[in-house]
């Protein structure tokens, strides 16, 4: 299969098989994408895939796992605990993975691979994600788009904050006042109910990820 093509593979975590999507050559230096959670993933998916394709064109193998209970996973979200997601982030990383690329809630998982570089976009606390999920439920008369996290997942999320280590680069949108190593212009796709063109934002992300990870590897 030629460079840039998309394939689906399996990985095993806690005894169950989950899907992961790969864009780029098998066996090359790889970036593990740790996706946003719940509805934020659906809203961000087009941007994620566009970013992965553009990084593949620059020679990176980009891997996006389905977390257990999310995406095409055969398991039910109701049966998933926080430790399942932590384990899945670790188990989905092949030895070729040299850095993680995490968006929003995904940044709460990248410390399981702390030896690798961790590039983060708009990290958020688990408590803030739960507040948003519960608020959406109220606004939508009890329907959270089907997201019903277990008590164990809620408890883990409630306590989770992004872990700082020396190999982290934090990027935020320029309209976000919070501290960051770098700010880029763009609107947060994870907040938009309406689909939007994501090409400009993706290109800005690609440039920063590519430059930073190469510098990480070289140092």
């Amino acid at each position, binding site marked *: 299969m030629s460079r840039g093509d998309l394939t689906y593979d399996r990985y095993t975590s806690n005894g169950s098989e989950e899907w992961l999507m790969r864009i780029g050559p098998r066996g090359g230096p790889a970036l593990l994408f740790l996706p946003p959670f719940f509805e934020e993933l659906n809203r961000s998916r087009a941007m994620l895939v566009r970013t992965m394709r553009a990084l593949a064109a620059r020679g990176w193998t980009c891997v996006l796992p389905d977390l257990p209970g999310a995406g095409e996973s055969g398991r039910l979200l109701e049966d998933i605990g926080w430790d399942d997601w932590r384990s899945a982030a670790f188990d989905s990383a092949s030895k070729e993975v040299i850095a993680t690329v995490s968006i929003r809630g995904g940044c709460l998982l990248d410390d399981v691979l702390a030896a690798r570089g961790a590039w983060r976009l708009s990290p*958020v*606390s688990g408590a*803030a994600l739960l*507040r*948003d999920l519960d*608020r*959406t439920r*109220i*606004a*939508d008369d009890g329907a959270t788009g089907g997201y019903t996290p277990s008590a164990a997942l809620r408890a883990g999320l409630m306590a989770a904050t992004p872990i700082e280590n020396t190999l982290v680069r934090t990027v935020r*949108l320029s*309209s*976000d*006042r*919070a*501290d960051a190593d770098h700010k880029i212009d763009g*609107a*947060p796709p994870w*907040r*938009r*109910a*309406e689909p*939007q063109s994501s090409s400009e934002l993706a290109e800005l992300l690609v440039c920063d990820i590519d430059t930073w990870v190469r510098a990480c590897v070289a140092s």
Partner: protein
Amino acid sequence: MVAALNDDQEVDATLRAVLVDVLGLGTDQVAAFTESTALFGDLPEFDSMAVAGLLSELEERLGILIEDDEVDAEMLENYGRLLTFLRAKALR
């Protein structure tokens, strides 16, 4: 994670940025908002589902918590009321 706010103008700028980012409104349109510009029930983009995302983003960016019982149609009625509510939360 968010530095303390000490300035009315910063809350105003953050609210305008969030309206652009979350509702997809034009920067020029939002820059022209005055205290009496009607929001909830008047702007088509400002519906009940959008309110959830808007409040969550404001919480994150201003470092505040907004309780459900504090949210009503009056607080969201116009730009001035929403800004006053946020200033009281963020600057105390």
